[in-house]
């Protein structure tokens, strides 16, 4: 603080310092409701992870070259030659996964504590857009290493948009920059990933935070019956909550470095537009949608998969009950738990589909619908085409 005392006179000659200081003190000492705990730190954790993505992303851009002939090689260079390149890429890749996870936990906390209710509906809606933006980051970033998995996951992912009635084919062309996934697609995804999305997300997060600071955190009281916070019976933002965030931030950093070292991110094989590898799967946060789409014809599947995001977006306007406490909202909480369970079940099915596992000495093969089929001869995987023919649905389209 001695440094501040020295520069304060200089600043005071130029700015209205009492006003500035009062604003900072007011913001720092902002009282928070007594139920504010560790579950409330996941929003800030998402923000820390976004900052991590920006810093590591800028560092990766120094060596990354977004063309089909250099993208894969430049990532290999980062992983093997550039000093600590493995760490920077590892932090970026694991940071992305953890960011999606933190945003999801933050949304769950908001949902189950009824914090999205009046007057904070818009903060929730912005949050849903932030979530959408986060997974779009994941989808566009996944292609950039230009390896087999990313190439074919992008081919299948963008092909699905082609089934949207009327505009589908146009959206697909616009996304891919042509008929197929090519260098044009790579360039487009790169621009989206490093320029467009960061600015969109920054704006969304800034507005989200602004609304949160202006309206304050939600209490557990009924809508319209909130009492003003008693400063004596509330938690000051600084230092109490900030310290709590500091603790969880240290845990996060430790967890991230552990993940990067123990489970390094692989590079795989370079993309080959002429060979599709077996069992391509999207990232874990798309697995439930990926599996859901298999059970429905293309067009119906798109409508069905649009229901969860639309429900999320409109939820504050559909749920009119004034209660916030989860025990007093049995219907909303049941719907939330059911939605969560469905997402987990479909995700697990998606993960198991088109794979073979050994359980109690017996080998099972899961078909595309994740239905297990016992393999007759143990330790002998049959010709994949044969087994697929046996499990393929009998829906002929001729």
């Amino acid at each position, binding site marked *: 603080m001695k440094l501040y005392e020295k520069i304060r006179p200089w600043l005071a000659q130029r700015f209205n310092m009492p006003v500035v200081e009062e604003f900072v003190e007011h913001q720092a000492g902002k009282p928070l409701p007594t139920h504010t705990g560790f579950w409330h730190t996941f929003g800030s954790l998402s923000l820390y992870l976004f900052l991590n993505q920006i810093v590591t992303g800028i560092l990766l851009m120094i060596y990354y070259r977004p063309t089909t002939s250099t993208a894969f090689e430049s990532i290999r260079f980062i992983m093997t030659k550039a000093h600590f390149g493995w760490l920077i890429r590892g932090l970026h890749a694991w940071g992305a996964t953890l960011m999606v996870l933190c945003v999801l936990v933050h949304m769950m906390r908001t949902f189950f504590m009824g914090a999205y209710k009046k007057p904070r509906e818009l903060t929730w809606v912005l949050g849903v857009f932030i979530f959408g933006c986060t997974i779009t980051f994941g989808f566009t970033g996944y292609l950039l290493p230009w390896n087999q998995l990313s190439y074919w996951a992008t081919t299948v992912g963008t092909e699905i948009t082609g089934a949207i009635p009327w505009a589908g084919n146009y959206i697909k062309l616009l996304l891919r920059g042509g008929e197929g996934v090519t260098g044009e697609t790579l360039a487009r995804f790169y621009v989206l990933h490093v320029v467009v999305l960061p600015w969109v997300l920054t704006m969304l997060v800034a507005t989200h935070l602004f609304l949160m600071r202006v309206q304050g955190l939600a209490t557990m009281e009924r809508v319209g019956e909130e009492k003003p916070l008693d400063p004596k019976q509330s938690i000051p933002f600084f230092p109490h909550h900030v310290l709590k965030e500091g603790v969880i931030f240290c845990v996060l950093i430790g967890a991230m470095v552990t993940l990067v070292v123990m489970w390094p991110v692989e590079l795989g094989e370079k993309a080959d537009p002429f060979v599709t590898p077996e069992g391509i799967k999207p990232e874990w946060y798309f697995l439930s949608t990926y599996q859901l789409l298999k059970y429905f014809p293309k067009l119906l599947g798109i409508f069905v998969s649009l229901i969860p995001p639309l429900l999320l977006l409109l939820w504050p306007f559909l749920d009119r009950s004034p209660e916030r406490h989860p025990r007093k909202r049995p219907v909303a909480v049941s719907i939330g738990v059911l939605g969560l369970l469905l997402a987990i079940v479909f995700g697990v099915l998606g993960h198991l589909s088109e794979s073979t596992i050994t359980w109690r000495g017996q080998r099972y093969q899961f078909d595309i619908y994740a239905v297990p089929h016992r393999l007759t001869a143990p330790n002998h995987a049959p010709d994949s085409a044969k087994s697929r023919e046996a499990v393929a*649905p009998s829906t002929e389209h001729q």
Partner: protein
Amino acid sequence: MISNEQKLSRRSFLDWLLTGGLLAWAIGFAAPVLSYVWPAQHRGPSTQSVSAGKAEEFSDWQSKMVAVSGHPVVVVRTPQGFRAFSAICTHLGCIVAWNASQHQIDCPCHAGVFDVNGRVVSGPPPRPLAEYGVAVVNGEVMVKSA
């Protein structure tokens, strides 16, 4: 809308003019940006033929993958002659592969199966595979771009 009794005041006329002008200005900026982002495509007939190698290199039910105008094409020799199909699955765009033991074309992604005529046998593909013309010219298997 303005009813017949109401007269359009000078102020609201200017408001309309200004709003319209701003809208036209925004469209004027957006139009070239949107058309710039729209992929520039080279269309037109392409009559290129691509060689898939010598006919004698193929035994019956043997196949080869060739690139025709940048698109993967699977060429198969059947006892009745050569057939060539687009190797892009009509379901979600994965690359199909010739299954010599079953005499069928398999998709590795969602278990789509096509027969030797490119027709869907089973699985989710909505359409048969597109067929390419094949001709044997001086012992060379030539695939014509569609």
